[in-house]
């Protein structure tokens, strides 16, 4: 214990006396987070071109309207339709669950009997049938609240446009039927008698799917950007951590330590603890910026959800993953130039793949699959669970488990390299 404490004290003193490293660890990420969150808030609003959204259509109608919606979405290049009926997934709860875990971004639910109801509604609205009791058909759109507003709007307007087309077709069919049945030249009604505003389907309203049913708050750009860039900053400690270690090797103090009866795990522990504390300070400071400073600068307020325990577990897991990766890089690089270049570049690649610089759903499908290899992607999904989907501890356990597994592998490799090099 005394040795570990001595090792932690030594590492802490070295870090605190290295002003450049402190600047890299705190000031730069804070500036970066502020600039990127503010800058990208507006930039994201302009995006949307060339994006393909996976849309699941739950066709419980299994009739003309259902088939028409599926075929209409299938021909729009922005959508990749996954027909829930064909995959046997018609359970709304299961679909919602899929959305909360990010498996689907949007789901369109066409209720049973939609076609019959639409026809009745059309006939009633046009005065071909008695009464006015049939309500407009509610086609529902479930959405992932982590999607950008522009992308959600695109899906809503597309769905409304498709429904208007189907609506027109249903009305035309009714008119055509009436024309076939009439003996005169006209349609059996005067032009002024045709209602001007016939609606068969009700206007589609978006239903964001959240784990906490009481909250349907849409995510702000800060909620999307802050956790991402915070994770990025946490992983950026790979540079000072590996450079410190490589300097130890180059200056010979590591060789001297190896001539002493010291376990590699003790040396690793001596490095983990101070950098772990730094990571937590980084995260807290960035959350404080999101909560207090960002609104003052014209950005959105950061909503951190309702589960501080989830935030703590996820931050701790992400920190171990970042430190483990940093130590592994340190044991493989021979010079500080190598560590700076490789460490920095790999963190940027992790960030890009992890959906931090570019949202995951904007990426082409093959790249979306690749995001699974980035620990930052696991961390970001976890923070979305908490901040946007109001998730709890249970919801972030898979992401935490992935991060801790990654950390264990990296630390074991680092310990092996400590021992053998």
């Amino acid at each position, binding site marked *: 214990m*005394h*040795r570990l*404490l*001595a*090792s932690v*004290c*030594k590492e802490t*003193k*070295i870090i605190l*006396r*290295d002003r450049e490293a402190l600047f890299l660890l705190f000031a730069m990420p804070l500036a970066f987070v502020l600039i990127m969150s503010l800058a990208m808030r507006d930039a994201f609003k302009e995006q949307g071109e060339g994006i393909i959204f996976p849309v699941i259509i739950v066709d419980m109608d299994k009739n003309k309207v259902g088939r028409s919606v599926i075929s209409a979405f299938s021909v729009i290049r922005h959508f990749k339709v996954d027909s829930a009926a064909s995959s046997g997934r018609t359970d709304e709860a299961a679909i919602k669950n899929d959305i909360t875990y990010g498996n689907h971004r949007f789901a369109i639910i066409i209720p049973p009997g939609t076609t019959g109801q639409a026809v009745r509604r059309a006939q009633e609205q046009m005065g071909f049938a008695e009464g006015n009791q049939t309500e407009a058909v509610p086609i529902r759109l479930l959405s992932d609240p982590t999607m950008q507003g522009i992308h959600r709007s695109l899906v809503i307007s597309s769905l409304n446009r498709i429904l208007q087309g189907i609506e027109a077709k249903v009305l035309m069919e009714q008119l055509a039927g009436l024309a076939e049945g009439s003996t005169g030249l006209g349609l059996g009604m005067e032009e002024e008698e045709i209602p001007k505003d016939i609606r068969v389907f009700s206007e589609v309203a978006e239903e964001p799917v959240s784990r906490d049913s009481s909250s349907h708050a849409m995510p702000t750009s800060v909620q999307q950007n802050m956790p991402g860039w915070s994770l990025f900053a946490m992983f950026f400690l790979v540079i000072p951590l590996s450079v410190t270690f490589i300097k*130890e090797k*180059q*200056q*010979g*103090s590591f*060789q*001297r*330590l*190896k*001539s*002493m*009866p*010291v376990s590699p795990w003790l040396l690793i522990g001596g490095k983990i603890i101070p950098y772990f504390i730094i990571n937590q300070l980084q995260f807290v400071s960035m959350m404080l910026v999101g909560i207090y400073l960002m609104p003052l600068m014209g950005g959105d307020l950061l909503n951190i959800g309702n589960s501080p325990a989830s935030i703590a577990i996820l931050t701790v897991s992400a920190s171990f993953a970042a430190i483990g990766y940093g130590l592994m890089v340190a044991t493989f690089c021979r010079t500080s130039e190598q560590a700076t270049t490789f460490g920095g570049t790999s963190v940027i690649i992790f960030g890009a793949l992890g959906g931090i610089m570019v949202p995951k759903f904007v990426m082409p499908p093959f790249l979306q699959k690749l995001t699974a290899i980035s620990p930052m992607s696991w961390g970001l999904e976890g923070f979305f669970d908490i901040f946007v989907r109001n998730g709890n501890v249970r919801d972030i356990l898979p992401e935490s488990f992935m991060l801790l597994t990654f950390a264990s592998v990296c630390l074991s490799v680092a310990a092996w390299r400590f021992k053998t090099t």
Partner: protein
Amino acid sequence: MNKENIIEVAGLCKTYPGADRPAVDGINLAVGEGSFFGLLGPNGAGKTTFLSMLAGLLKPSSGKLLIAGLDIQGHLDVIKQRIGLVPQDIALYPTLTARENLAFFGSMLGLSGSRLDARIEECLDIADLNNFAGSRVEIFSGGLKRRLSLVIGLIHNPDILFLDEPTVGIDPQSRHFIYNSLRRMNADGMTIVYTSHYMEEVEQLCNDIAIIDHGRIIARGGVEELLSQHEYNIIRVRTADEIPAALQEKIMALPYIQESRLNKNGLTIKSNTPQQALLELVSILQQNNISIISLSAGMDNLEQVFLALTGTTLRE
């Protein structure tokens, strides 16, 4: 070596991955307890590799290595507690103070509390660093750094101290300070293993010497013993003009000369009858109008022994 052996090495080899020849090639060696053992050899001879294996930093490719009667395989932690290492590099944390460096390495060696504090003070005394105890190492001169590096190797009072070229790049004053400290410690019973390519310091300090080249021990003994072991004598001639290669061939053809080698402005000759060789050599140089600036003969230092054994000088 009138005492029990504290280091025993048999058939020790080390080949680095991808290397075409071993860095240490079958060394057999025994070092007595309390010895001041010097390992002399040129750069790249295998000194640091050999020392790294003795200090438990490198795993031998083959061979047996006993420290204080314990096989290094299986007793590494016990052995590490009994040895001290002063590496070739400065091996300090520049942003920590001298006292903080001592405290950290002392803690790693298991010292704590008042025992650690007492040893830090003793080490600062030994290195005469009391006035610099609270200063960061980054502002130290090379000599002060070396002195601190030396006492860090001593902080846990080891039985054996390994020093890998500990005086490289320092001023004569600090060098003599280190020499005196080491002599005192050796007189107090500490076994010292000292590697260097400076033959003068090995001659001055060590009572037991091994010369290493290409990973092998090529000579072993005390200074006098080594000087008397070699039948060949070395003749060195420094000339005002360059000796032409054709003349060197004529010199080689002379009787009494076994080997000759051209240097910058001179010639080195190996002979087992130096008196006759000298006469012949002076005569032929005069005949060819080559002026002699200096002339030496005999085997009065280790460098010449090394030259006689390997055909190269230590500093080449």
